[in-house]
């Protein structure tokens, strides 16, 4: 491969031939899981309440802290699935 602006190199890379490394892709249906931890923490009516309390913390606080688990879960799955497909 000589350079990015050489048309020959570009064609070779995009057509999966000429011994170029197999074209990788980040596409996966599993990536849609990432939408869940983005949307849910923004829906204020879902958690904007005092009760039920957990160890004295209003729901507003403990539930939002608990949402961290959603984020970690979704990014971990997206990473693991992407790794396996390599």
């Amino acid at each position, binding site marked *: 491969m000589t*350079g990015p602006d050489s048309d020959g190199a570009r064609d070779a890379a995009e057509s999966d031939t000429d011994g170029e490394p197999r074209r*990788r892709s980040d596409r996966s249906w599993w990536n849609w899981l990432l939408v869940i*931890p*983005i949307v849910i923490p*923004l829906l204020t*009516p879902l958690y904007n309440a005092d009760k039920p309390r957990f160890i004295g*913390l209003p729901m507003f606080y403990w539930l939002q802290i608990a*949402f*961290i688990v959603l984020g970690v879960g979704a990014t971990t799955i997206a*990473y693991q699935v992407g790794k396996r497909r390599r």
Partner: protein
Amino acid sequence: MTSNQIVELVIFIVLFVAVSGIGFVAARWRRPADMMHLDEWGLGGRSFGTWITWFLVGGDLYTAYTFVAVPALVFASGALGFYAVPYTVIVYPMVFLVLIRLWSVSHRHGFVTPADFVRARFGSPTLALLVAITGIVATMPYIALQLVGIQAVLKTMGLGSHWPLIIAFLILAAYTYQSGLRAPALIAFVKDLLIYAVIVVTIIYIPYKLGGFGHIFDVAGAHFDKLNAANAAAGKPPAGSTILGPANQLNYATLAFGSALALFLYPHSVTGVLASKSRNVVKRNMSALPAYSFLLGLIALLGFMAIAAGTTPIGTDNNTIVPRLFDQMFPSWFAGIAFAAIGIGALVPAAIMSIAAANLFTRNIFKEYLKRDATPRQEAWTSKIVSLVVKFGALLFIIFLNPQFSIDLQLIGGVIILQTLPSVALGLLTRWFHRWALVAGWVAGMAAGVWMLYTIPNPKTHHLHFGGSAFSVSKLGFDTQWTIYAGFVAVLVNVVVAVIFTLIFKAAKAPDGRDLTTKPDYTADEGDPKVSEVPVLG
């Protein structure tokens, strides 16, 4: 100065000096063949693994100022200040797929800054210059705010003059100059150990002393009810509450969303990401960094604890509320450790931010406009010098201007850095936009953002303008009490204008810039060949 303050100060100085020593030694850590190269000085050799990246980016994003300002906001406004938690939960899934593309294309082409990428992607030095200037302007007050964090601690220990701050900053400047990004990377380990230790103790000990979280929130609720009743009688808006009111829910959600969009547009965040050695390191960190969000959630609660403990800030400086709480609740030796954690916590992001701003200047102003044939050695020199200038500028900010001014500027910084979203973040996903349309969108978004901020008064400081980021939707002609995050509206304006102008320019067949990147560049990984050994801007 009381004897308690002397104990605090001694512990603070010992830890601070030890960490500064680490900063200087860092130049030899994972020793490079030649430090005089931006890849080495400015990106730590692009070689950091999962753990180092976690500490580095954690220290970079969750700054000392965050740890001081978020509880201060909770102390003043209650639930609204907790937006920092949803903000730092949603940010990682949001940027997951975008950052790995940024890492890959930068790895292939040797990009050091987000503006380098924009330059190559859209073939427009002008657009790259706008992105670079936006980045520098947004970062400067952020560095100044790290000093506000240190200053809050020094004030609590009875050091009101500027000299201790100046000394601390000279030390920081010296080791950043010498060791580059390796210094904050190594210091971040120590800083995090201290922070984690302090928070674990704090979150158990203080609620225990104050009678549990239930009691803390009951006291805080009564406190806000009283303030709100007084404000209502004086015809002022409510001060705050322990859960959101009807008028600020939209603001809460858009503030969290807008801040999340902005976070990885900041040049110092990009620096942290580009210093990692592979895509997988970036991905793993998207799952690991939320550990800091958990910490931040706990720290935010300190604001309520301060209310329940009857803590008062020094003067009207709410940023002193956390140091004051520690001073009040802990024996002096532990308060000293906690103060050191905050002070050292300020050094890590301040170093990375000054490096990032210096790299922007070097790559996108110096090399682009002043000296096109600069060698890597000259680039590294320029960055080292500029990093000193940037820090010195931040210091002058704090000494000669009211700290409130830095806080207002940082608020503006968040709104303006968002205006690079279409060029940088959307640019990583698509090449559809026209370069001139992106310039038009930037201008429109910037104008809209600054205008909105201008209309927002601060009732507490009696400033008529730039008093916050909660824009009253009623100013747009809607009959409502709702407020919305100004940055969110501004970036919407930006994107809409960029889309419309792209359609116009495409219809008019306006000449578009050449894209130097190719599709596979965006999925390249560690070990894949680089486009050239010496980074070129084409």
